[in-house]
């Protein structure tokens, strides 16, 4: 691999729970990724724009407030509309089991629920970003 993988860790909408997003951002950083963290209260439009401007390989979205089925598909459509459909999109947080298939159908590559292993998130990201 010639360059470091670039990952955008994002919080969408009005969901202020940022503990998980920060822990994951730091785990990516410690694992040698280049990390951009959007901070909380981001609109899908702003996250798509940041992802494209920063030319990231991975967009990792943290959701704990129940709006995942509304906001994550919006973001994916925005990325596709702007020709950025090669980015690996991941989701994590409090996402009920029965919503996972809907997110995967929308184009999310992996969903990581509470108690996920950080090393497993890193391994999954490396493997799937390389395949893109």
């Amino acid at each position, binding site marked *: 691999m010639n360059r470091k993988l670039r990952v955008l860790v994002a919080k969408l909408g*009005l969901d202020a729970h940022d*503990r998980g997003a920060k822990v994951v*951002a*730091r785990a990516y950083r410690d694992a040698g990724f280049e990390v951009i963290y959007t901070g909380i209260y981001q609109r899908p439009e702003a996250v798509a724009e940041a992802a494209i401007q920063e030319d990231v390989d991975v967009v990792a979205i943290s959701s704990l407030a*129940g709006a995942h089925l509304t906001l994550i598909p919006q973001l994916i459509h925005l990325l596709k509309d702007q020709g950025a459909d090669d980015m690996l999109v991941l989701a994590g947080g409090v996402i009920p089991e029965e919503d996972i298939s809907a997110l995967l159908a929308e184009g999310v590559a992996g969903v990581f629920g509470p*108690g996920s292993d950080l090393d497993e998130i890193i391994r999954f990201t490396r493997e799937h970003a390389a395949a893109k």
Partner: protein
Amino acid sequence: MSHQERKERFAGVSDREVKRAYTPDDVAGLEYARDLGDPGEYPYTRGVHPTMYRGKLWTMRQFAGFGTAEETNARFKYLLAQGQTGLSTAFDMPTLLGYDSDHAYANGEVGKLGVAIDSLRDFEILFDGIPLDQVSTSMTINPPASIMLCMYLAVADQQGVGWDKVSGTIQNDILKDYIAQKTYIYPPEPSLRLITDIISFTAKHVPKWNTISISGYHIREAGATAAQELAFTLADGMQYVQAAIAAGMDVDEFAPRLSFFFDVHNDFFEEIAKFRAARRIWARVMREKFGAKNPRSWMLRTHAQTAGVSLTAQQRENNIIRVAMQALAAVLGGTQSLHTNSYDEALALPTEDAVRIALRTQQVIAEETGVASVVDPLAGSYYVEHLTNRLEEEALAYFDRIEAQGGVVKAIEKNFFQREIADSAYRFQRRMMNGDYRVVGVNAYADGAEAKKEAQILRIDPAVQRRQIERTQQVRATRDQAKAASALAELRRASQTSENLMPYILACVKAYCTEGEICNVWRDLWGEYREESVY
């Protein structure tokens, strides 16, 4: 003979090393009258009341709110029918952040994490059939706290209940929002002004209302250790006392109505010691630093909630046991009220069945275990007294570091708390990953099949958002427009003076101005706070 132990180092959630056993040497210098005192006596280490739960059990107060006001009103009535003794309202994210349900930013979030409130109409439904002179109500909301309190007072007026009869709490703690909870709207200066306006108004007109709930809960849940939770929360408390004194109030006029809210986590003895240390520190600070004369100003009264962050999505029934032990620690720590989490909350909002078990957990502790028959039974334990001293020392050391940075607001601007908390959160996650901290069902005794078991969870019907938007738009269309416009104009005018804003907010609420309209007056005048994120 060898004394082989299971591991090299023993440490709990906060990663403080624990010795094999504690002896009188570990509490050398402890003086009963000076450092503990009898229950109900300064410095209240043993509890704020001489009889504690022999006189009156703690208030069993389950946090509830979802969907529209109708759904939450039904959950409130269910909880009261099950023997709950106080109400506690959870609002949805748009309400917490001052957006009406039809704002573009609210899409997908209406009624999800709590009840959607836009106007007085919603509050009339929320408390329909609940006499406000017979329950106390807590409301977890911060920047719009003044608006929710005014809605509550307006409902009391409609019910013919005098303001001297209503009791409850608004969270109203903006400092911990900048530090951890992040439901801020405005910058610190105008936010503190709203808080001092509420404190001074309620001291005169709503004497049984707790004006602020100085909260460690969110600080802890964001990743802080027990000592950080204790230190940052009490530092916030001192900042509010300073702000109210600076606004011209006498300390004994408002301090008796300050209340606290702590997390209660897994490390049983550390949590008990934390409550005891909190009372001792606060009593000394109020008496010695702020010169309070009224003993009620010295007493730290607190709500407690079991640690949401300790719940696991895996083997979720295990959460019932975690919650029971955390709740027992809160009771042994001498809390005044308690929320017990439901076992399914790592997955979604709790179902009615899960909430009932959580409430029954408190009732079992109260009725069956015998712990409510005796006050502060762990006093004199070498370990608990040592831990109480240690937590106090660690908190005092943090006070010095905060002071050296110019106080709480300056330390927030420098990201001091945010960095400390993020570091602790990451350290804890790493300890879990390397097995140093073991969580049953997650990194110990895990069982893949169990994790995938279908869970019965509470889901919010997408129709909730549509129904709520319809109601709010109808309220806006049918109210007395001239009255609403003039109330908002008056609020805008007064907000640019130093007048107390509460009467103006109440006039807006009674004219059916929406929460979003009121918050926008201030957004326009004061701007919005933005943080630099550190991780």
